């Protein structure tokens, strides 16, 4: 005879298994539906793959061992491949500066909005909801769309790019910051408020010291994302290396495409590594 607990256990197990299968089936159906809608057929994937390789083959520069380290005039040399290194380097520098400025500006905006957008600090429900929705608004519009609008307003150039990335960054960092604030220890807050401090005093002295290392870490992470974003945003005329990349792509200057992409990868990787170091250090500051 099975003991009653064992019977109950078996029933529970079977119910869980059925529920798991049921939800799994729903998920599979959704997946198939989305594949059908977006026309992501395996056949199309297979048909297109060789052409990806073809494109890459065209991007590979012609390099000759004999002249590899020759001057810019020597065909088949590295210098010939990167013959416009000086202007590309400047554009890459411009791109990283765009990302830096946009990140800084956006993070300041996020910092201002995150405290009233945190459920534990918001002075009332209306302010909380307003700030949350505002952050969502900033975040839900892609920076490329902002750039399109701003290029129209401010003209072609980096300013539009900085503003576009900055606006999106306000929303992205603001939400993350608000969540950090919501996890903050509220005992210091109570202490400051009980001593007669204002809301601003509480934010400044009780909350900010706790959350600053996390804020710094999230800002650096956003900076890494923004550097990548800034390389693309030039496609719509918002400055930086992207503008140049768009041109060489549209003119099919294959060797220049590969040269620029390689430079972008190198710069982004270097910035990622440096920022990762900084983030590690910032996280270490999080312990009291």
């Amino acid at each position, binding site marked *: 005879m099975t003991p009653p607990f064992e019977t109950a256990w078996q029933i529970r197990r079977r119910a869980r298994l059925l529920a798991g299968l049921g939800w799994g089936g729903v998920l599979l159906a959704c997946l198939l539906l989305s594949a059908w809608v977006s026309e992501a057929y395996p056949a199309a994937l297979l048909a297109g793959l060789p052409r990806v390789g073809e494109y890459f083959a065209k991007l590979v520069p012609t390099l000759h061992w004999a002249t590899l380290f020759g001057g810019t005039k020597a065909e088949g040399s590295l210098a010939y491949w990167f013959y416009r290194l000086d202007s590309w380097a400047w554009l890459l520098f411009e791109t990283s500066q765009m990302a830096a400025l946009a990140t800084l500006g956006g993070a300041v905006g996020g910092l201002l909005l995150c405290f009233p957008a945190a459920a534990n600090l918001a002075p009332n429900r209306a302010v909380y909801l307003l700030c949350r929705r505002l952050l969502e608004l900033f975040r839900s519009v892609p920076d490329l769309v902002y750039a399109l609008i701003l290029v129209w307003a401010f003209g072609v150039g980096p300013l539009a790019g900085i503003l576009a990335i900055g606006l999106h960054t306000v929303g992205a960092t603001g939400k993350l910051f608000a969540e950090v604030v919501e996890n903050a220890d509220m005992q210091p807050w109570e202490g400051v408020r009980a001593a007669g401090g*204002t809301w601003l005093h509480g934010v400044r002295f009780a909350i900010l010291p706790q959350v600053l290392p996390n804020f710094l870490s999230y800002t650096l992470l956003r900076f890494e994302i923004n550097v990548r974003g800034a390389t693309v945003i030039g496609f719509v005329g918002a400055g930086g290396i992207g503008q140049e990349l768009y041109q060489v792509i549209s003119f099919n200057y294959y060797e220049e495409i590969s040269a620029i992409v390689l430079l972008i990868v190198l710069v982004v990787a270097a910035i990622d590594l440096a920022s990762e170091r900084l983030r590690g250090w910032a996280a270490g500051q999080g312990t009291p």
Partner: protein
Amino acid sequence: MNEPVLHLRGLTRRFGAKVAVDDVTLDIPSGQMVGIIGPSGAGKSTLLRMVNRLLAPSAGSIRFGELEVTALSGRALRDWRTRCAMIFQQFNLIPRLDVLTNVLMGRLNHRPVLTSLLGLFSAAERAMALQALERFDLADVALVRAGRISGGQQQRVAICRALLQEPRLMLADEPVASLDPRNAKVVMDALRRINREDGLTVLCNLHDLDVARDYCDRIVAMREGRIVFDGRPDTLTEARVRGIYGADHGAGTEPALT
């Protein structure tokens, strides 16, 4: 003495359907050291938190002399909180800031918002903070982060912060519940000192009956949100203690822990 009296009249606080503090009426003359005792959940903390309006009362009134505390808001409320300082069971210091800055938090409401936000305190205020720290043997940790010193030291730092508010009244919510007996004695001695030397009224929640008996002029006992005893410590007999903490506390068993 013409110092104002703290009047609580019919003070009530509900959390949903639960009544945490039920119709409490109490007069606390200036300069008294009052211990509020009772089992956990009796409403001691809620009562104290209503006095400095960290919690709003559901009904009843709080008056300090002529000042109607129940209706205060904004600047006037902050002024009131400055006058009735509070110390907490978990100290509620800012662990990442140094001890001196923590003590200076008591001055926030004494200077313009802008300068205090920038953390600009005057030399006189720093001297005042250091003097308070010296009084409780803490001067040598003035520049150490508050999170790095012992619990007993943290609670004394919290007392210094409270003193810099230049209060008339000191509320203490289970000030020694997180401390070992030796540190508990140091902190209770500090509270007695500010009561005796500075003439501050001290209103102190305690779960340890012995501590309350040793230090307080007057004991108020609460049970299920109501006051069930109010008198001098020596009139708190064994039978009355059983009444406060329930019948399961046999003779000779002191309710030392909650």
